[in-house]
C-alpha cells in the first residue's frame, strides 16, 4: 500500500538501492573478467605436470642429426621417466597424439613410464590463454605447445618458454636465417617453426588465360596491378584478388609489402616504423594503390561465402601462404588442374617477395617442463628425421588429409614428396615451397606485437574504406603507438 503511493521516499530508496545493486553486480562481472579469468573464462585442460621420477642413471645424449632414420636432436636422459607429458595445440589434435604415441613406440627406453597426452583447444588464442593461466597458477602447464610466431617475444618476456639451442642450432641450415632471427632473443632460438608460412601467389590458370594474362609476367607489383586492371575490365568487374582487411587470415598486403621492403611494424630501435621510417610510408602507399585500382576485394574469410567465392572463381589470384594448399584442395577439389603457383611479385623484377606470413606456427617448450630434452627430441623425431617425415606424409595422404610441407630437402627425392601435383598442373608443390622459402624473410615480432598489429590494422581498414590516406595513416599510427610501446617496442 505505502509502497506505491504513501511513502515515495521509501520507493525511491528501494529503487536507488536496486539500481546500485544492479550496477555493482555488473561491475562484479566485469571485474571478474579481468581479475578472475581462470575462474570464469579459462579452464586449463592440460594435466598437471609432475616432477619426473628418474629410476636409472642418465645416459649421454645422442648426437643431434637431421637426416636418415636416426632419431632425435638431443636425447633425453635414458631413464625410466614417469608422470604425464602434455602438449597443447589447436587443429588436428589426433595428429599430435599420434606423434607422441609413435615416439613412445619408437623409443620405449627413453620414455619409460611416461604417459603422453595431446590436449586441444579451439584456436591459438585459446591455447595462449590456457598457457598463461596455467603458468600463473603453476599448475597444468603443458610441456610443449603450439603458437603463432608473433607471440614468441611476449612468451619469452613472461618467462614461459625455454631456449631451444640444442634442437635448432645443429639444424640451422634447415631453416631460413631470417625466420630464425625473428624467433630468437640474444642469439638463442626459442621456437621451432615446424611449418613456415611460405608466401606464394596462387592463381587461376584458366581465368588468367581467358583474360590474356601471362602469370610469369607478374614479377613486379606494377605489372601485377596493371594485370589486375586488365582482368577487371575484361571480365566486367570481377575481382583480381581478395584480401582480408584485418589480418587474421589470408595474406595481408601490408605485411607482404613490408617483407618486400625488408621492414617491420617496429624498427630495430623500438620506434614504430610508421612515422619514423619512410619505407613504411612506401608500404602504406603500395597498400593504398592496391585498393584504389578497385580490382581487390576485401572480404571476411573462413566462412561459407568465402569458400563459395573460391569455388565459383570470384578471385583470379590469391596472395597467400603455403597453408592455402590444403584449404583449396579441401574446399574445391573440382578445381584440380586449374590453379597455379608463382612467387609473389616484388618491387623489382629481379627480386620477388620471398618470406613467411607471420613467420610460422611454432612449437615452444615451457620453462617449467621437467621434460625439456624429451620435448625437443619429439620435435626432432617428427620433423627432422627423414624416414619419419616420409612415413607421416604417407599416412596423412592415405587419410586424405594432405601432407605437411617438409623442412628437409633430403625427402624431396622420395615419394610422396617427389610426385607431381595435379592440382597445380603437375608442378612439385613441396619443392616449389622449399625453393620459395630459401632466403625468405619475415617481419620482426616485437614485445607488444598484438597491440601493434591491431593499431596498424585499424588504419588499414580506414584506408580500405577510403576514410584515410596512406600519409594520414603513417602520421597517425606512429603517434598512437608511441605512447603504447615501451622501450624496445
Amino acid at each position, binding site marked *: 500500500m505505502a509502497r506505491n503511493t504513501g511513502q*515515495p521516499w521509501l*520507493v*525511491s530508496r528501494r*529503487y*536507488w538501492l*536496486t*539500481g*546500485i545493486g*544492479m*550496477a*555493482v*553486480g*555488473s*561491475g*562484479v*562481472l*566485469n*571485474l*571478474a*573478467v*579481468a*581479475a*578472475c*579469468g581462470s*575462474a570464469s573464462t579459462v579452464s586449463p585442460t592440460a594435466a598437471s605436470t609432475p616432477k619426473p621420477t628418474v629410476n636409472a642413471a642418465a645416459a649421454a645424449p645422442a648426437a643431434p642429426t637431421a637426416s636418415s632414420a636416426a632419431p632425435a636432436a638431443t636425447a633425453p636422459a635414458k631413464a625410466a621417466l614417469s608422470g604425464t607429458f602434455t602438449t597443447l595445440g589447436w587443429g588436428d589434435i589426433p595428429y599430435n597424439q599420434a606423434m607422441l604415441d609413435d615416439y613412445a613406440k619408437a623409443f620405449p627406453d627413453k620414455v619409460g613410464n611416461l604417459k603422453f597426452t595431446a590436449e586441444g583447444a579451439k584456436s591459438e*588464442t585459446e591455447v*595462449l*590463454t590456457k598457457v*598463461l593461466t596455467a*603458468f*600463473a597458477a603453476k599448475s597444468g602447464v603443458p610441456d610443449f605447445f603450439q603458437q603463432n610466431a608473433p607471440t614468441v617475444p*611476449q612468451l619469452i618476456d*613472461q*618467462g*614461459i618458454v625455454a631456449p631451444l639451442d640444442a634442437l635448432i642450432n645443429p639444424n640451422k641450415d634447415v631453416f631460413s636465417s631470417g625466420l630464425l632471427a625473428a624467433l630468437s632473443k640474444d642469439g638463442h632460438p626459442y621456437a621451432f617453426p615446424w611449418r613456415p608460412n611460405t608466401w606464394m601467389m596462387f592463381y587461376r590458370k584458366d581465368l588468367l588465360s581467358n583474360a590474356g594474362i601471362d602469370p610469369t609476367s607478374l614479377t613486379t607489383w606494377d605489372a601485377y596491378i596493371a594485370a589486375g586492371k586488365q582482368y577487371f575490365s575484361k571480365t566486367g568487374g570481377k575481382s583480381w584478388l581478395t584480401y582480408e*582487411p*584485418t589480418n*587474421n587470415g589470408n595474406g595481408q598486403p601490408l605485411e607482404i609489402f613490408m617483407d618486400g621492403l625488408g621492414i617491420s611494424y617496429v624498427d630495430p630501435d623500438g620506434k614504430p616504423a610508421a612515422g619514423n621510417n619512410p619505407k613504411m610510408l612506401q608500404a602504406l602507399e603500395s597498400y593504398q594503390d592496391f585498393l584504389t585500382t578497385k580490382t581487390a576485394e*576485401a*572480404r*571476411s574469410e573462413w*566462412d*561459407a*561465402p568465402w569458400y*563459395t*567465392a573460391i569455388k565459383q572463381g570470384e578471385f583470379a589470384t590469391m596472395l597467400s601462404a603455403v597453408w592455402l594448399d590444403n584449404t583449396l584442395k579441401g574446399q574445391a577439389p573440382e578445381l584440380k588442374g586449374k590453379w597455379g603457383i608463382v612467387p609473389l611479385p616484388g618491387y623489382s623484377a629481379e627480386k620477388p617477395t620471398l618470406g613467411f606470413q607471420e613467420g610460422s606456427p611454432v612449437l615452444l617448450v615451457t620453462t617449467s617442463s621437467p621434460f625439456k630434452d624429451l620435448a625437443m627430441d619429439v620435435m626432432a623425431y617428427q620433423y627432422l628425421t627423414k624416414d619419419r617425415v616420409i612415413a607421416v606424409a604417407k599416412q596423412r595422404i592415405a587419410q586424405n588429409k594432405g601432407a605437411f610441407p617438409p623442412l628437409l630437402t633430403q625427402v624431396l627425392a622420395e615419394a610422396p614428396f617427389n610426385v607431381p601435383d595435379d592440382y597445380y598442373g603437375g608442378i612439385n608443390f613441396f619443392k616449389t615451397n622449399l625453393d620459395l622459402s630459401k632466403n625468405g624473410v619475415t617481419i620482426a615480432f616485437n614485445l607488444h606485437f*598484438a*597491440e601493434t598489429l*591491431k*593499431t596498424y*590494422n*585499424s*588504419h588499414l*581498414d*580506414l584506408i*580500405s*574504406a577510403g*576514410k584515410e590516406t596512406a600519409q594520414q595513416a603513417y602520421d597517425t599510427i606512429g603517434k*598512437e603507438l608511441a*605512447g603504447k610501446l615501451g622501450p624496445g617496442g
Partner: protein
Amino acid sequence: MRARRYLTAYLFIAPFYVLFLIFGLGPILFSFYLGFAEWNGTGPLRWIGAQNYAGLLSDGTFVLAVENTLWLWVGHAVPMLPVALALALLLNLRWLRGRAIARAAVYLPNVTGVVPVALAFTLILDPKYGLLSFALRGVGLSGLPWLTDPTYSKWGIILFVIWRATGWYVVVFLAGLQSVDPFLYEAAMVDGAGAWSRFRHVTLPGIAPVLLFAVVIDTIGSMRAFTEPTILTNGGPANSSLTLAMYLYANAFEYAKFGYAAAISYAIFAITLVAALLQLRLWQRQMGD
C-alpha cells in the same frame, strides 16, 4: 553462547560466503589493486600508482570503445524497448487467437545459442551472398557491407541484438502488464477513458517499475557487450565496433596488460553506475510529476 546458538545456521550458509570470498570479493579486491599496477600475468607486480587510469584518458582506442559501447546501447535500446512494449501489449490482448504460440515465437530467438545465431547472421548479412542483400537486390536496392565497413558495422550488430533480445523484454513487459489491477481499467472505462488514455494513465504508471527494470538491465548488459560484436565483427573494421568489454579482454589476454585491463574494468563499472543512477534519477522525476 549466541554464536554457538546460530552455529548450525552459519554453517549452512557458509559455503556461499566461502565461495563468494574466493571467487567474488577476492578477485574484486585484487583487480582494484591491479588497477594501480603493471603486470604481465606471470612476473612480479609493479606498483605504478594511477598511471593506468591516467592512461585511459589519453587512450584514443579506449575513448572510441566508450563511444561505440554507448552507440550500440542507444542504437538498439531506443527502437527495441518500444517495440518490445508494443508486442507485449499485443500479446496481452485476451481476444488474440494463438497467443501462446505467438509468445513462444517471440521468445524463441532468446533461447537460441548466441554463437550459432551470430554465425548465421554473418551469412545473412554478407554483402554478396547474404539473404538480406539478396532481398534488397530483389527490390532494386544494393546490399550493404553491414559488417565490413566502418560506417555500417554497428548497425549489423544492432540488428542482431534487437532480433535476439526483444523477446526477453516482451516477456518482462508481459509480466508487468499482467500485474496491473484490471479493476483500474474498468474504473477508467467507466470514467470514459479511451484506449490511449488508459494506456497513458493506467498501463504506463502500472508497469513503470518494470520499465525501469528493463532499461537498467539493458544498460548493464550493453556496457558488457562482448559476444555479439566479437563473433560478428571482432571489433572491426577500424575498431568501429570495438566495445569496452572487448578492449578489456584484449588488454588482459592478448596484450598481457592485466593492470590496464583492471583499470578498464573499473571504468566500465563507473560508467554503468553513472548510467544506472541517471536513469533512476530521471525515473524519480517522472514519478514525481
